[in-house]
């Protein structure tokens, strides 16, 4: 290699990501929150009548993803804004002056890490729910069942996409608080607005992250009117690509 490139930038980003505590706390919190919600749901259904179905347990025990998406979204935001807030960004851009190489490296490293953590968290939610209903009449959900496995895997993918959206918003906004606020607002506000339109809101609602998560991604079968889970996750990846692209354009023209 005669000059630096993506590979070098990605190694730098990997070291940076793993060498701050906030990364580990956010990852642990994401896994713990999903495990806790999963177990809570399972415990709640133990004495429930009529006896819950396997799908019911799974759908609800993945509900912790609502919290996990905020934590991993914040992780994505902080990989960028954490540098702007501290002045580290100037060291980074001095080391790798091609800023879009930095952005791509950040997206790849953070997205990869978030996918791994998201899958572990999703699995933790599933396991939490299953362990909590052991010894009851509720049927177990097996990962061998394609519908179950799909929901668990897609939830992990959705969480990774949320982190990537965080990277993009962080690049555009640059300030940690403002960027995390923007991310959270984008997750919740459109859903509240769409909720005002009742049933007819689903035409728009099926494009909204949180609605997709709860009704299309993290469920064994999507509710009518919503996209199949994998399309929802692809949509999320599309959103992520769009905001990262916008961030990349701004990055080029702004002073660091």
């Amino acid at each position, binding site marked *: 290699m*005669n000059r630096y490139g993506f590979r*070098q930038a990605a*190694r730098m*980003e990997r070291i940076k990501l793993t*060498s*701050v505590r906030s990364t580990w706390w956010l990852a642990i919190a994401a896994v713990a929150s999903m495990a806790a919600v999963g177990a809570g749901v399972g415990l709640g259904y133990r004495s429930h009548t009529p006896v819950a179905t396997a799908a019911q347990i799974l759908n609800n025990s993945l509900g912790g993803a609502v919290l996990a998406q905020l934590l991993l979204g914040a992780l994505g935001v902080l990989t960028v804004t954490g540098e702007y807030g*501290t002045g*580290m960004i100037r060291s980074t*851009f001095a080391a790798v002056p091609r800023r879009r190489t930095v952005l791509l490296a950040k997206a790849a490293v953070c997205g990869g890490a978030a996918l791994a953590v998201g899958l572990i968290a999703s699995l933790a939610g599933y396991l939490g729910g299953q362990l909590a209903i052991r010894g009851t009449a509720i049927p177990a959900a097996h990962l061998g069942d394609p519908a179950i496995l799909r929901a668990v895997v897609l939830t992990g993918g959705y969480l990774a996409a949320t982190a990537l959206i965080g990277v993009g918003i962080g690049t555009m906004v640059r300030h940690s608080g403002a960027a995390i606020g923007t991310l959270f607002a984008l997750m919740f506000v459109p859903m509240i607005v769409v909720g005002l339109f009742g049933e007819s809101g689903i035409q728009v609602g099926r494009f909204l992250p949180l609605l997709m998560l709860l009704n299309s991604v993290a469920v064994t079968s999507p509710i009518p009117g919503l996209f199949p889970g994998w399309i929802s996750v692809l949509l999320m990846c599309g959103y992520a690509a769009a905001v990262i692209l916008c961030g990349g354009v701004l990055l080029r023209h702004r*002073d660091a």
Partner: protein
Amino acid sequence: MVSGLRRPAALPSVFRVIELRELTKRYGGRVAVDGLSVRVQPGAVTGFLGPNGSGKSTTMRMILGLDAPDHGEALIGGVPYRELAWPLRTVGMLLDAGAFHPGRSARAHLAALAASNDLPGSRVERVLRTVGLSGAATRRAGTYSLGMRQRLGVAVALLGDPGVLLLDEPVNGLDPEGIRWLRDLLRGLAAEGRTVFVSSHLIAEMALTADRLVVIGRGRLLAETTVAELSAGADSLEDAFLRLTSPETDYRGMEAS
């Protein structure tokens, strides 16, 4: 060798020249750097002097491609910074003490930057020893004193064993011992044939450290000279500096008349 580093690669010295051509930067209506044209040569410590707010840091950031000039260009060995194949191996920089994440250890900070330019881990340990931070390398950099932060900044600058060094106010926060250490280090680096460009508003320190001086005020070049030339005909370098910059200093107190 004072720095404990090898001599810069046997490149012709022209590759270590910093050249500013009519460099100009505006923020809104205010001109921060105004048509600055300077050549900074290797083999000497060049002091970059000017009052607060005269555009020194903005100039440094433009040399590093962090801020885009509105007009003109900054070249290192004839190429813009962003075109460098291995930036950290060509140019070492110390920006304001704080261009690091406070939650990251000095060693991780250096390791990340080393990875970006394919520098071996041995360089990280080497520069940690050079700046005397080996014992504190695993501590979070946010817990460092101002002097230690400056030392970490110097370690970053030396990391790629570059032929060109840019240091923005490096003596800030250093104790007298640290100031002498840095002075010897910079003079040693220049004696090895490197280009050392150091900004400061401390004239007395520059009188001891620098060979050549670039003096600016309100973003404009006031003098490109040597320490000896500037102080000739004045009681001290400080007097000469103040005489040179007084029309350009915008925060002078109201004189009682």
